[in-house]
């Protein structure tokens, strides 16, 4: 699908600034990055508070959270569009807002807006020219990108006549114009139809496979769950959960047994040793406090003629984790950790 | 505050002050070239605060709108100028307002010649005939002349206002000694041909026959086809020159005889009477001179020169007469007014 070749930069040395060592292999690093706009009625700061995150090169990094949780603020801080009130950050080892790293990044804002009077080709020519690109190389690149996002046959339509989906597609194209190493994507799939969503997800994984780093903001957790390598969940400006998706979805010390072709009698028997048992989609799902209990139960089940569909660590959906984390009164409910 | 910001702001302020010497040099150049037109703010404010409210509002609004529009200041002057006509024709009571506004227009746009001319004309001609008080009439004459002199100080490189001032002195004051000086000033700049002849006309009426002939001679040298100058030269040589020459030689009686001979044929010729009176004055026959000037003054209501001369002589002879505006004007203005050298910086300082 992607014809262009990425040039992954792996600089194996360290840069000394302010007496600290920053490892260049990190795409993004922030340290207690804060942007406080104002304070609410209870005197709590509103904005982004003390965000520390590390994004390694080659990852798909998800910044998740409900509306107003500080996702876009984080993006704007990382792009140098706004300035932190405290803390600091680096992108590719450069201070925030530096022109140097902007050569290597692409940005798709949420619900992107472009010069309305340009058509797709002109728009990409303009953005390409900002990188000093031009001539036949740029033309070839534009054709490639327009075909990639499925806009080639609509390339002469002016932006003001675009649908939301078309804006999103041309937005992806402009973000990729300089073949960036790091992509910032804000609500990538908003406004897209299901086929478009699937296309975009393919695009993301393809890009990751080419060694690109992707920094994705979204409130659509279901979409992000299979894609992200690492996620941060933000709520009301604060970091609630951080980790790889695996880490977040696994429930500590619980083992899950999924059975089909089970009987009510078997269910009653298992329920005595299981922490809980539930029926979903004609399958019996039981959770156990430790592995030995689970293995014993599995043995019983096989003897009773049931079929084991799955046996392993208990997994939750990202949505569950999210609701658990942000559901309470406090910005972050840390009770389960 | 970051260092670059402090440095940046200091640099900006330093540059503002560094522009100043360049600005000073430019302002000097503009003054020399006559490009600089400082708004006489103090005069405008003083006039606005001293005048009546309606006028102050109109005037100050005009100035502010004019200044505000920048490039349209002159157009604002044009608009106010139209307003002056409205005031002028409304009736007697509003003429003062009209004059005030006219004055404002000249302040707003002093290089526009029309308002200077019209304002002076209103003063020296129109207001002049609206009163019977010679002292007031003399004052209007004086104001008209001063208005034109100020206009000249703003526009010293155009003939128009020199001519206008010369004409006012020639036609209304009948100061034939002063008028040609301003015609000559007008002649230094591109001008219509008749200005040249006006010098001759003035000396002819003064009378100063040799200078009149010189002036016409100049006209004919400039344009040999100038029929007016040719005709005037012939007339003067035939009618007045013989008497004038005799008087110059001291033969006053013969001179008077010569001019009387012409006056027998043309008893109402005002030029002839002027020459006769002039010769009588030279001969020391003041009574005859008085009678002649009086006759000329009575024959033509507009012969203000004869009327003024009659008053002068009557005073010397002890004859009671009514003063004329022109006489009052000449006495008031004296000699120092006549050294009216254009002072173009008068308003800017």
């Amino acid at each position, binding site marked *: 699908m992607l014809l262009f070749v990425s040039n992954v930069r792996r600089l194996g040395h360290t840069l000394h600034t302010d007496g600290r060592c920053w490892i260049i292999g990190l795409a993004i690093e922030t340290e207690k990055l804060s942007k406080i706009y104002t304070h609410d009625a209870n005197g709590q700061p509103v904005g982004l508070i003390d965000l520390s995150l590390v994004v390694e090169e080659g990852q798909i990094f998800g910044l998740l959270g409900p509306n107003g949780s500080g996702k876009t603020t984080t993006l704007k801080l990382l792009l140098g569009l706004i300035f932190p009130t405290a803390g600091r950050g680096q992108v590719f080892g450069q201070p925030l807002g530096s022109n140097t790293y902007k050569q290597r990044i692409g940005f798709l804002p949420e619900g992107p807006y472009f010069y309305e009077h340009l058509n797709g080709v002109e728009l990409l020519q303009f953005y390409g020219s*900002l990188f000093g690109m031009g001539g036949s190389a740029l033309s070839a690149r534009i054709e490639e990108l327009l075909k990639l996002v499925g806009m080639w046959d609509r390339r002469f339509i002016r932006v003001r006549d675009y649908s939301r989906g078309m804006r999103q597609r041309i937005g992806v194209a402009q973000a990729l114009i300089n073949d960036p190493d790091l992509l910032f994507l804000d609500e990538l799939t908003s406004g897209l139809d299901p086929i478009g969503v699937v296309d975009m997800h393919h695009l993301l994984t393809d890009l990751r496979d080419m060694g690109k780093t992707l920094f994705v903001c979204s409130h659509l957790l279901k979409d992000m769950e299979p894609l992200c390598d690492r996620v941060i969940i933000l709520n009301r400006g604060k970091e609630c959960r951080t980790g790889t998706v695996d880490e977040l979805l696994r429930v500590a010390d619980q083992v899950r047994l999924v059975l089909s072709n089970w009987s009510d009698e078997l269910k009653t028997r298992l329920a005595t040793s299981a922490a809980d048992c539930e029926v979903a989609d004609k399958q019996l799902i039981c959770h156990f406090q430790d592995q030995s209990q689970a293995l014993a139960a599995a043995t019983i089940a096989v003897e009773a003629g049931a079929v084991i569909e799955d046996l392993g660590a208990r997994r939750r959906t990202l949505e569950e984790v999210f609701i658990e984390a942000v559901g309470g009164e406090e910005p972050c409910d840390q009770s389960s950790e | 505050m970051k260092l670059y910001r402090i440095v940046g702001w200091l640099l*900006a302020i330093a540059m503002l002050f560094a*522009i100043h010497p360049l600005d000073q040099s430019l302002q000097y150049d503009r003054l020399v070239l006559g490009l600089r037109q400082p708004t006489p703010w103090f005069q405008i404010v003083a006039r606005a605060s001293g005048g009546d409210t309606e006028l102050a509002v109109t005037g100050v609004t005009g100035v502010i709108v004019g*200044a505000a529009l920048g490039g349209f200041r002159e157009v604002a002057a044009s608009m106010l100028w139209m307003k002056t006509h409205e005031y002028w024709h409304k009736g007697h009571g509003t003429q003062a307002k009209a004059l005030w506004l006219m004055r404002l227009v000249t302040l707003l746009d002093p290089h526009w010649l029309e308002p200077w001319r019209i304002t002076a004309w209103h003063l020296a001609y129109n207001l002049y005939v609206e009163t019977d008080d010679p002292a007031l009439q003399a004052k209007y004459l004086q104001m008209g002349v001063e208005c034109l002199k100020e206009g000249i100080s703003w*526009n010293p490189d155009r003939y128009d206002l020199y001519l206008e001032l010369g004409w006012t002195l020639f036609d209304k004051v009948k100061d034939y000694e002063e008028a040609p000086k301003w015609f000559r000033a007008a002649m230094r700049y591109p001008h219509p041909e008749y200005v040249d002849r006006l010098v001759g006309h003035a000396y002819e009426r003064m009378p100063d026959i040799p200078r009149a002939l010189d002036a016409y001679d100049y006209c004919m040298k400039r344009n040999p086809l100038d029929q007016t100058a040719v005709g005037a030269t012939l007339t003067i040589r035939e009618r007045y020159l013989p008497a004038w020459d005799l008087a110059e030689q001291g033969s006053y009686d013969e001179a008077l005889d010569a001019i009387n001979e012409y006056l027998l044929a043309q008893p109402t010729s005002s030029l002839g009477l002027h020459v006769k009176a002039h010769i009588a004055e030279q001969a020391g026959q003041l009574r005859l001179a008085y009678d002649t000037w009086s006759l000329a003054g009575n024959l033509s209501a507009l012969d203000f020169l004869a009327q003024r001369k009659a008053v002068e002589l009557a005073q010397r002879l002890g004859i009671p007469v009514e003063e004329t505006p022109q006489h009052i004007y000449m006495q008031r203005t004296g000699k120092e007014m006549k050294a009216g050298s254009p002072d173009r910086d008068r308003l800017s300082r």
Partner: protein
Amino acid sequence: MRPIFRVARATFHEAWRRRFLNGILIFAILIIGSSWAFAYLQPGAELQMVIDIGLGSIRFFGMLIAVFLGTRLVPDEIELRTIHTILAKPVSRAQFLFGKYLGGVGTLAANMLLMGAAFYVVFAIKAPQFLAEKPEDAMIVAAMYSNIAKAILLTFFEVFLILGIAVVAATLFSWVLSVIFTFVFYFVGHMSDFFQQLSDPERGASKIAQIVMGALYRILPHFEIFDIREAILMGTYTPWSVMFKTIGEGVAYLVVVLLIGYLVFNEREV
């Protein structure tokens, strides 16, 4: 430098799609084109009326375009969020700001050229008619041709300066406030000799007035320096030294304005 010109070019193309700009331009050209129709108002000074209305219109409408274009250039980008994708590319804020300004200058220059050309045509038609009635003014009218071109050239720099002030004002204030600010700046700049007179000790200015009014006189732009109408009407030659000094002063002031704009916009959140 490259990004500046890219942004400038995009700004220029975009500006021509602004309806109010086209409206002002058409209206201005109509007024200039019909200025001879107003000339009858001043018998004996028809040519002066044509010049006053023509040059006055170029200035006034140039100023209007500068104010309304300048105060929209950057805020539009911020409100429509088009600035986000641009500043996320290797374009610094300074480059963006100067690019927007330069694009505005191009737009303004094109508008002024059109208005200037319209006026020049009217003048060239009207001047011979005037000369036929008043042949003694031949020298003055002959000098007018070059003087009017010079006057229009100076007006260019005047409106460029106003545009700079408008662009910078719009980075500081809301739209309405920046429009008012720019207008007031323009008006007060035209009255700068007032402050000079107020700071004149010969007119009885106190020590404090001398310092405060003197500083105001130095800080305010002197818009009247761009006015050479007197030379046009008197038919005097406007030397190039004066032209260069005027343009130099205007450009120097513009540099100060843009420097302040850079200092403000560099810290501005978008």
